[in-house]
């Protein structure tokens, strides 16, 4: 697996404000979610990766090159910013074509590339309308189109799904997955966890400019030894099941909710899953659901940042 972005003690500060603090990480092929609350440093990191900021300390390489003051590298990356940066007098097609030409394409090449990119984001019918008439979701699509036009090796997307309806979100997520499968590295920055969860397991979690976690969600979860795992069970005889499980040494705590739901806290989920079927079978208890609410991005995020 290739390392698309490598960061080594990367820091960026603006006077007394620390944007990014001593981040050492690698981003690989495929889709990587860049997570964090507002002000965590996501945009700073993306700005460093797209060559718009110079590191205050440390270094960052993108596709093997330093991005700062490197226009040649920028023609290999596509960036979809969070801000709605539009020239309102332009149509969607003119917008995408202009930015394709700004990538160094000839006029004819830019027109062809724009047509294909607009078709990919399903804006073909509205491409000749002025951007000022677009809805929020349409503007997002056209922003993504301009990032795709050049067919970059690295796609950097800052809150690409903001303001989109569920159908639009699903379409774009499918599109990003397709790109990732075709060999393009995709970085998606978002503070909406379930969106990122729908795209990838691979995350980079920032908080107050620092790297809090890196890797796949369940690996990160497993590494949080001090946090007990939650397991949710649904059974009609939840109270009898609770009595049976209460005596087990791998169960740290139990909680019965609404008569049929039992929430277990355990530090040894593997042993629980190994022994639970036997307990249920021996005592003839039917269980309609077994799930782990905190093997989710939201839970991991909450544990690591200390915020719900």
């Amino acid at each position, binding site marked *: 697996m290739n390392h698309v972005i490598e960061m080594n003690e990367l820091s*960026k500060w*603006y006077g007394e*404000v620390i*944007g990014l603090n001593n981040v050492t990480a690698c981003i690989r092929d495929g889709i990587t979610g860049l997570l964090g609350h507002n002000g965590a440093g996501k*945009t*700073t990191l993306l*700005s460093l990766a*797209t*060559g*718009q*900021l110079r590191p205050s300390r440390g270094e960052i390489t993108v596709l093997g090159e330093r991005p700062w*003051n490197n*226009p*040649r590298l*920028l*023609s290999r*990356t*596509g*960036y979809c*910013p969070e*801000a*709605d*940066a*539009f*020239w309102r*007098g*332009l149509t969607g097609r*003119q917008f995408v074509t*202009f*930015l394709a*030409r*700004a*990538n*160094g*394409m*000839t006029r004819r*090449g830019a027109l062809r*590339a724009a047509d*294909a990119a607009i*078709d*990919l984001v399903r804006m073909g019918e509205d491409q000749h309308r002025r951007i000022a008439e677009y809805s929020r979701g349409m503007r997002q699509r056209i922003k993504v189109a*301009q990032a795709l*036009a*050049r*067919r970059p*090796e690295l796609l*950097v997307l800052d809150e690409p799904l903001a303001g989109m309806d569920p159908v639009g979100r699903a379409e774009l997520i499918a599109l990003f997955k*397709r*790109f990732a499968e*075709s*060999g*393009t590295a995709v970085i998606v920055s978002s503070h909406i966890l379930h969106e990122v969860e729908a795209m990838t397991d691979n995350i980079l979690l920032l908080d107050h400019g620092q790297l809090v976690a890196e890797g796949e969600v369940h690996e990160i979860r497993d590494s949080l030894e001090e946090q007990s795992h939650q397991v949710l069970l649904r059974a009609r005889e939840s109270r009898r099941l609770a009595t049976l499980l209460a005596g087990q040494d791998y169960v740290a705590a139990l909680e019965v909710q609404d008569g049929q739901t039992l929430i277990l806290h355990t530090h040894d989920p593997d042993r629980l899953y190994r022994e639970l079927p036997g307990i249920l079978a021996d005592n003839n208890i039917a269980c309609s659901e077994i799930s782990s609410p905190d093997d989710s991005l939201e839970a991991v995020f909450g544990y690591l940042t200390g915020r719900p």
Partner: protein
Amino acid sequence: MPVRRRGYHRWKGKLSSARWTWPAILSNGLRLGMKQKGASLLLWSGLPIAVVAGLLFYFMAVLEKQTAHPVQLPNELRFILWFLRMDRIPSLDIGKLIVPMWTLVFARLFQLELLLILLVQSKFGANQIAGDLRTDALPIYFSKPITVWTYLLGKWLIMMAFASAVMLVPNLVAYVAGVLLSDTVTQFRATAGLLARITAHSLLLAGLSSLIILALSSLTRDRRLVSVAWFAIALLPIAIQAVLDDAVPGRYATGLLGAVSLQRNFGRLTYWMLDVDGAVTSSGHAKLFGSAAGSGLYGADLGYSVAVLAAITAVCLLICLKRVRRFQVAVANA
């Protein structure tokens, strides 16, 4: 097969280097500018001036033929000669006066066109960088292989194009009309040098004014503030200059205190670039032109004006560079 099902094909094709991305910025800026209300009207407004100048050149050509081959002038032309205080001129050899007269006409044209430049730069230039700052467009620009220099070059050329439409184009139209309405070959031979001068000076004035409006546009996100500042810079010093002209002794008026207003400095530059004094002197009838030759305020101490304009150019360029580079802090802090 629909594009969506074809998979993700890496784009293959030749790319120009980052140095050549400014044409895209230029064409986009021109397209956006022309979409503004009243854009065409403003840009065409220089042409009536050119037509009037062309007619003047025609009358001069008629006068030249009159003195070379005297014929009875029609009454209408006699009236115009009287109106222009040129009714005694037929006793002179107009041929020798053509170059200084054309030079003076163009000098006056430049003064009128400066007013149009004021309006054009305000309309098209105020929002050039201010608009990009307001809409956070700079990250999207600089995520492409565009450098700060190519960005500023593209923006400057946009303003050069609009400014040239009301300065260079009318001057060229007036010149071509004058040549075509006269004895073409002779007239062109006599005034070819003037053509080069008016072209160079048009481009110089367009370039300087474009740089000033870009610098102002880079200072704020509000285009209205830019317009107010632009008019203030252009007009207030004229009033201050008028006060100084009355207040200070004459020997200071041609020095630095005589180089306060942009209008005065541009005027001096115009008279020097067009070589008004040289044209008038070589005609052998300098007294005929009197103060119209401008040897008083415009002919002297050009050095001060050049220094002032050079300083303004340097300051404006620095402002543009610093402000465009500084956006990065604003973006990351947002």
